[in-house]
């Protein structure tokens, strides 16, 4: 019961708990708040997996930007929060069924397959190594550029759509 396993369980309880909150609460702003907690939990798990860079990026982008974006969107669509109407539609039981079947399926597969886990210790992951992995020679430079173009397209698209026709 060293600190690694116990912190893993704490984090996973936190993640799953707040994730359930996100999908079940009536008041959408509370869901957004729990969404932020879920993201922080996930960032904790990343740190556990020795991916500090990813943890920091996760916090920066998800918690710092995406949650705020969602909060802004929630506030702009203000009227719907007032009356906390029934949040789940008639597909709810079907949704629960599909989620549970998916979960069992994955569990069964995970238990039976033995993953070729290699014993070596992970290479010291520092920002340099990730930087060279992304942009170094013979690595993922092209996808990186594609990703940046995608981001640009998304930004322009979002602005055009959200601005609407008034001006």
């Amino acid at each position, binding site marked *: 019961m060293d600190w690694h396993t116990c912190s893993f369980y704490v984090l996973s309880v936190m993640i799953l708990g707040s994730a359930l909150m996100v999908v079940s609460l009536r008041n959408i702003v509370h869901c957004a708040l729990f969404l932020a907690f879920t993201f922080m939990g996930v960032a904790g798990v990343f740190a556990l997996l020795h991916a500090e860079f990813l943890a920091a990026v996760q916090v*920066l982008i998800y918690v710092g930007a995406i949650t705020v974006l969602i909060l802004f969107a929630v506030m702009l669509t203000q009227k719907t929060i007032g009356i906390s109407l029934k949040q789940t539609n008639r597909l709810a039981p079907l949704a629960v069924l599909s989620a549970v079947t998916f979960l069992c399926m994955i569990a069964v597969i995970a238990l039976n397959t033995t993953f070729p886990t290699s014993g070596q210790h992970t290479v010291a992951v520092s920002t340099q190594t990730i930087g060279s992995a992304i942009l170094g020679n013979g690595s993922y430079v092209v996808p990186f550029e594609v990703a940046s173009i995608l981001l640009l397209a998304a930004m322009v698209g979002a602005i055009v759509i959200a601005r609407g026709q008034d001006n």
Partner: protein
Amino acid sequence: MTLTGIAEFIASFFGLPGSSSVWIVAVLAAAILLGFMLLTVLILIYVLRKLLGKIQARLGPTRTGPKGIFQTAADALKLLIKEDTIPVKADRRVFIVAPILVFVPAYLVYVVVPFGEGNHFIAKDLNIGLLYIVAVSSINVIGVVLAGWASENKYSLLGGMRSAAQLISYEVPQALAVLGPVMLAESLSMQDIVKAQGEGLFSWFIFRSLPLLGFIVFLVASMAEINHVPFDLPEGESELVAGFNVEYSGMRFAFFMLAEFAASFTICAIAATLFLGGWHSPIRGFLDNGWWTVFWFFLKSSALVCLLMWIRATYPRVRVDQLMEFGWKLMIPLALFNVLVVGLYVALGKGG
């Protein structure tokens, strides 16, 4: 006598399993940092009021204790005693969580601030130090927006949205400005950055590459980040009365004040570390080891704190659209230009 020693002693004392000393070290470090932060905030508020008094040709607090030194303690006590009202219509839970969300990031940043040489003067020298700071400082945006929204009143919602927009639009130049020193030191970890500025005064990053540009961009962006005077739109008294913390009182309001002042000290500490050579002394090698490093660090960051206070006394407030325009049209291009210049400087330095 390092922290780990104390942790083992406590672990054995309470008969806990040996491996849990890691937890105890973490808890101890956290406690020390919290104590340190509260102390600095107390001193900071006191110095601010005295300095403002000096600049404005008046005395500043003199009543409480000799030369008014207990003034901030009295303020804190007053805030503690004052009754915590929560507006009836307000959304109770969010109303309580919001100040915590604003306070915690200001406190978390201390983990990475290098107070002195060697790793017993720094809580945890993460190798993604700087990215961690930028990431953590982006959390308080949520706190601000929720605080504005939870108090269910028109003014605070407008104040909350306005300050969230301000925080987001100044996060970008701040992150870009931080890139300068990172490139020069080729590492994100704070200790490496400080080590790279070892050779005396002119090796500091403030002078390397385009002098002062990165430093000014970072300082102005950070001032906007902590709602410092020229950009203190949310508390624009004359327009929206007291912005998003209008409904808060007592202890919760203290959280906001605490977060603001703690953040203003951290900003100065980081600026000192990134641009003014952290705990290095100006003359190479002179008094550059052990406890002296801590002295240099505090000298530089308190000098910057006084600079901030001086600016607080002299500048009026900027209008909200000018603020946005200033942020997007001036700060971000300037920050990008700074990254370009430093990049060239490093490339030429390495190549040449």
